[in-house]
C-alpha cells in the first residue's frame, strides 16, 4: 500500500522537528529553544559594532609593555557558564593576582544569558578589578606624581603607564573574553557588549622591539561570517605592520573534536580550511578553542591547537586540577610554556551569595 502524501508530509515534518530538537541540544548544555530560534544579532552585526568600538578604542587595548623582565604569563579559561555564582571566575582572577599573571583571556560562554547572571559576573570582575588596582596601581600613584612630565614606565604591571593620568576608574582588570553561543541567545549580546564592548579585536604585548599579538575572533554562531573574514583579509585589525614574534588566537567554536563524546566542528568546509590556513599565515604559536568542554592539544600545520575544558560548576562540581591554563611567554625564542592550573571552589548557596551582595532570584 502506498503511503499517502498527507502522511508523507507528516513524517517529514516529524523528522524535521526531531532533527531540529537534536540540534538544539547538540553543543553546550542548557540551550533554550527560544534562544536557538531567535538570535538577536548576527555575527556580521556584532563584528561591525566591534570594529566601530575598536577603531576608537583599539589603542587602549594596546598598553602592555614588557621590557627588562625575562618572561610574562597569562591565564586562559573557557565556558564558565556563570549563573548566580561567579566563584570560579573570581578564583581565576585571584590565582592570576597571586601569580602575577599579566592578563586573563576567556573563550566564551562566560555567563548564561540572564541579566542577573551578568550582574553577578560583572560584580565578580569589579571585585577582581579592585584587588588588581590595589596591587598594581596604588603603589604607582606617588611615583606618578614625582615624574616630571607625567611619563614613566613601571615594569611591575608591565604596562606603558604614560596614560596613567586617565581617570582611575578607567583602569580595569585586564580581562579579554570572546563571545560564545550562550552569550548571544536571548538578549545576551547586549549584556555582553555592555560590559566588554567588542567581540573582534586584538592587542599586542611589546617585548623589547618586537610584539606578541593576541587576536580575538567572534565565532559564537559557529562561523566567522563573511564580514569578519573580509575584514580579516582587509587587515582591519591594526597590528599587521608591527614586527610580530608570537601570535595567540582565541575564539569560541572548536575545530578539533576531542573525542566521540563531543560534537564535531561546525565550521563549513571552506571556512574550516580558510581558518586553518589563516592561523598558519599569521604564524600562530597557540590557537585556543572552547565550546566542547573538553581538553585537546595537538599540532597542525605548525600551529599548536588547544581546546579547553569548561570551568563551570555543572561539569566540575568539585573543581579540578586542570580547568584553566597558564601560558608563560619568554623573552628569548623559547616556545611558550603551557601548564594546566586547577580551580577548586564549590558552588555557593543562594543564601550565601545573597549575603555577599550578589543578586539572587528565585525564578
Amino acid at each position, binding site marked *: 500500500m502506498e503511503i499517502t502524501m498527507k502522511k508523507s508530509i507528516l513524517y517529514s515534518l516529524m523528522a524535521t522537528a526531531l532533527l531540529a530538537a*537534536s540540534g538544539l541540544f547538540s553543543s553546550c548544555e542548557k540551550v533554550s529553544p527560544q534562544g536557538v530560534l531567535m538570535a538577536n544579532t548576527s555575527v556580521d552585526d556584532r563584528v561591525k559594532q566591534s570594529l566601530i568600538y575598536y577603531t576608537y578604542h583599539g589603542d587602549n587595548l594596546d598598553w602592555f609593555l614588557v621590557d627588562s623582565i625575562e618572561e610574562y604569563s597569562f591565564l586562559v579559561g573557557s565556558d564558565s557558564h556563570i549563573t548566580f555564582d561567579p566563584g570560579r571566575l573570581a578564583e581565576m582572577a585571584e590565582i592570576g593576582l597571586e601569580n602575577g599573571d599579566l592578563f586573563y583571556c576567556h573563550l566564551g560562554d562566560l555567563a548564561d544569558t540572564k541579566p542577573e547572571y551578568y550582574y553577578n559576573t560583572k560584580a565578580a570582575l569589579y571585585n577582581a578589578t579592585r584587588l588588581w588596582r590595589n596591587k598594581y596601581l596604588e603603589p604607582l600613584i606617588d611615583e606618578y606624581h614625582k615624574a616630571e612630565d607625567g611619563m614613566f614606565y613601571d615594569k611591575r604591571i608591565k604596562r606603558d603607564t604614560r596614560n596613567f593620568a586617565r581617570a582611575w576608574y578607567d583602569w580595569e582588570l585586564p580581562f579579554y573574553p570572546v563571545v560564545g553561543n550562550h552569550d548571544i541567545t536571548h538578549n545576551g549580546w547586549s549584556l555582553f557588549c555592555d560590559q566588554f564592548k567588542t567581540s573582534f579585536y586584538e592587542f599586542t604585548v611589546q617585548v623589547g622591539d618586537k610584539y606578541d599579538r593576541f587576536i580575538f575572533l567572534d565565532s559564537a554562531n*559557529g562561523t566567522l561570517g563573511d564580514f569578519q573574514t573580509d575584514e580579516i583579509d582587509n587587515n582591519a585589525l591594526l597590528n599587521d605592520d608591527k614586527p610580530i614574534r608570537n601570535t595567540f588566537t582565541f575564539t569560541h567554536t572548536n575545530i578539533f573534536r576531542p573525542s566521540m563524546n563531543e560534537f*564535531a566542528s561546525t565550521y563549513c568546509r571552506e571556512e574550516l580550511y580558510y581558518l586553518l590556513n589563516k592561523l598558519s599565515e599569521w604564524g600562530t604559536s597557540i590557537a585556543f578553542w572552547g565550546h566542547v568542554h573538553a581538553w585537546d592539544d595537538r599540532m597542525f*600545520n605548525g600551529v599548536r591547537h588547544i581546546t579547553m575544558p569548561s570551568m563551570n560548576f555543572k561539569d566540575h562540581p568539585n573543581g579540578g586540577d586542570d580547568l584553566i591554563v597558564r601560558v608563560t611567554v619568554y623573552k628569548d625564542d623559547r616556545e611558550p610554556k603551557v601548564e594546566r592550573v586547577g580551580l577548586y571552589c564549590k558552588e555557593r548557596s543562594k543564601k550565601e551569595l545573597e549575603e555577599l551582595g550578589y543578586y539572587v532570584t528565585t525564578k
Partner: protein
Amino acid sequence: MISRLRFIICILACLAMCSASAQYYNGERTFDGEHHNEVSLSLTTGKNIITGPCIGNTVHYKHYFNDHWSVDGGANLQYTKELYGIKAKGEYHIKVKAFHIFASAEMLYNRYFKYKTNEIDGNISVRFERGYWDITLGETLINYTIGESGYTELPTLTFGAHATLRPRTNNWNVGLLFRNYDDFYYENWNINWGLDFYYKFSAQWKMFGEFNIRPSGSMSQLASKYETTGKVGLIYRWK
C-alpha cells in the same frame, strides 16, 4: 505492520541524528530494467560567504549492472571556489516489501586549491526509499591535509531526509530536502535544506535542479546562512 515499521524508521533516523549525516539526488534512481547507463551534467551558481559568488559544473556517470548493482563516478569543477573533486561510488539495491533499500560505499576526493587543502572522504550509507520519501543514514570519515599535517575527523553521522510532492515514478516532481551533505561534500552539523525538482521529457531525457541553503554553525549555535546555491542539469539515459 508497515506503519509500525515506518514509525520505527523515523524514530531510528531521529535517534541517530541525536547522537550525530549522503547521497545526491537526481530524481528517480531505480534501475528500470532497460537503461543501463546514465550521464548527468549540471550547472551550479550561488554565493558562498568565504569564496563569494560561486559557479561550477558537475558531471556524473552511472552504470547499472542489474537490478541490484550499480557504480557511479562524478567530477566537480567549482571555478570561483577553486574547488575540484572526483568521486566513485558503488551501490547495492534490494527491495524489501514496499521499501527500496540502497546500500552504498563512496570515496570522494576534493582539492581546495585556494586553501592548499586535500580532502578525502569515505562514506557508507543506507537509503530507505518509498514512493514519496526517502531517508538516508550513514557514517562518514573525513580526512584533510594542509601542508604536511593531516587530520582525520572522528566518524560523523550522515543524514538525509527527502520528501516529494508526487510519487517517485511520476514524470515530474518537487521535493523538500534536509541533509548534512551534498554531491561533493560531507558536513558535520551544518544541515542543508532546500527544494529540488525534476521533469522527465522522455525515457531518455530528464531535467533536474535544486535550490540549496547550506547554513554555517549548527542549529544550536544560531546558524546563519553560509552558502546559497541553485543547480540545474540534464540526465540522459541509454541502454
